[in-house]
């Protein structure tokens, strides 16, 4: 059996990153499940508590849907969970969405579950694969992990619903899943944005990787555009490295202040009522003029084009 060296550094607080390195130092590796992870080098994981919880949920034979915005670290999380479960000796299959057939073939390969048709020498069909894998899973303990689950074809999703009702534990990682079928049924964990400190660390290590010297001031300036999203943290450093101009920030952590502005301006129309109450015609007139001005500003603000959902101008 190959020697697997594992260097694991766990610090006192949960938000501290875990570095997991695994190396195979010679020898034959007879364990099929660990084969794909034997040279796995994981990136630093900040969501340690979430990882622990996911592993616990799966080991308790339950399923989970992990939802987070694009780039928030779902794939990283999924990879680390897969590694840890594989290390503990469990059978698992981790797949990305492709065509139903490719997907099922990948699962079958990872689980080492040969469909009957293949044994008989015929080309496997989707239905045959589905049935074969389902049978295998009903007799063996194994975990299924689906990354980018919102892109799964509906055929697979219905199949997953069937597996779920027969108690198969699975982990789905999705960006903006629709609210129906399997996504609705699974218990859900929503990923929060990372903290300022964590984003700063990611930015710093990205810069070091690219050989870019950035002062704290420059990092602070760039960090405005990250919005707690680790992928954006790396991308922003890369854009700086490539000398690209400042583009519109892509994160989703916005609060639109236009309604507040309009509400604040509308308070000025109270002057009109003060004029009525205080019996001052000039205040009333002035309030009337202010009301009209605020109305004009409102019309102008409502006529400006909304933010486009697409990137760029």
């Amino acid at each position, binding site marked *: 059996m190959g020697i697997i060296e594992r260097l694991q550094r766990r610090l006192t607080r949960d938000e501290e990153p875990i570095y997991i390195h695994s190396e195979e130092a010679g020898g034959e590796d007879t364990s099929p499940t660990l084969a794909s992870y034997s040279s796995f080098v994981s990136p630093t994981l900040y969501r340690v508590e979430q990882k622990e919880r996911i592993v616990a949920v799966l080991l308790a034979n339950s399923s989970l849907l992990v939802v987070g915005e694009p780039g928030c670290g779902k794939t990283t999380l999924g990879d680390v969970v897969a590694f840890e479960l594989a290390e503990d000796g469990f059978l698992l299959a981790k797949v990305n969405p492709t065509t139903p057939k490719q997907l099922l073939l990948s699962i079958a390969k990872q689980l080492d579950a040969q469909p009957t048709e293949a044994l008989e020498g015929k080309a496997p069909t989707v239905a045959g694969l589905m049935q074969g894998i389902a049978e295998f899973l009903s007799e063996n303990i194994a975990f299924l992990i689906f990354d980018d689950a919102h892109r799964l074809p509906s055929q697979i999703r219905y199949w997953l619903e069937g597996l779920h009702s027969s108690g198969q534990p699975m982990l789905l990682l999705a960006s903006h899943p629709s609210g129906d079928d399997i996504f609705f049924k699974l218990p859900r964990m929503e990923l929060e944005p990372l903290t300022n400190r964590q984003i*700063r660390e990611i930015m710093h290590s990205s810069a070091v990787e690219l050989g870019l010297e950035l002062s704290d*001031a420059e990092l602070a300036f760039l960090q405005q555009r990250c919005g707690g999203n680790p992928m954006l943290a790396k991308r922003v450093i890369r854009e700086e490295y490539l000398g690209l101009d*400042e583009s519109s920030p892509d994160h989703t952590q916005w609060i639109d202040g236009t309604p507040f502005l309009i509400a604040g301006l509308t308070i000025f129309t109270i002057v009109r009522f003060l004029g009525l109450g205080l019996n001052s015609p000039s*205040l009333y007139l002035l309030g009337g003029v202010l009301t009209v001005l605020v109305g004009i500003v409102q019309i102008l603000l409502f006529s400006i084009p909304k*933010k486009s959902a697409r990137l760029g101008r």
Partner: protein
Amino acid sequence: MRSITHAICAVAATSIFLGSDPALLVTGALASQLPDVDSSKSIPGQIFLPLSRWIEKRYPYRTITHSFLATGAIAFLLSPIALLNVEVWKATVLGYFCGWFADVFTKSGVAAFYPLAARLVIPQNPNLRLSTDSKSEYFVMAVLVLVAIASISINSSGGIVRSFNQTLGIPSGAVEIASAEGSQYLLFASINGRAAITQQPIQDDFEIIRPLTQNDLLVKDREGKVYKVGTSEECQIIANRITIKRDRPIRSRVQEIQLDDQQISEVLPKFPSDSNRTYINGTLTLTDAEDLVIPTHSDRFDTITGQPGEKTTIVRLESAGTAEVTKLLTDYYATGSLIIRSQEVL
């Protein structure tokens, strides 16, 4: 945004909400530079270098210092100043608020609701927001300068309501101004209207005696003829526009006389006044005044009106001059009370 834009924004806001005292404007402008202490590249950051280095190592730009929380902290920490001078404290807090609120209009916004990490932006469409070193910022700066200038000049000419009234020349607004300032200044009304009976256009300056109702003024022309000017029916001059001009400051004196069956000619001289701006108001009951004929005029205001009765005659005085009263009512015995107002030009 540039520091100068923040300063101009603070000056405009302070002038609008707190008045145009130069000390307050300067305080506001200085306070507006404080939020930029979170970057060591800005001037306040250079001044407080240890603090700015500490902040930018941990926080993204425009996070903790550009928030309502920071504004509240400043208000709280500087509250001892409020004990000394409330206006300066208000100007500081308002200036600090403007210092970061102006950055809401930039592409990256500010974390206004810190410790919430979400960034406040106006408007939502990022293409309509300012990026750093954008040329449109000069346009915004120009607009803010205009607003600041307008606000300061309005404040200097007596406030927005007064300026509004003066610009439009609304008669009721003129009456309000006259009511507010009539006891401190000699006021002249520049009247644009027409004579009620002859319908001749009138465009002239009249000295204001006093406001009569919410819409009417009592004025006199250079010859001393008294008119009621305004928009109501009994006015001799119907006004379209009235603009008030302040003349010299005056000192007003008010005295009250009681008459109990006394002759006016005996009582009046006891209350001398050296000004030709003496106005008498009141109601008198005269006895044995069957022969009294009180003249009425249709083209001007009757300061003395009378109601003859069986045994007594009731005479009403509204801003009547001393000479008039003496001429008409000298020998009669009167009962009643009079109020004598005299204005002395300083």
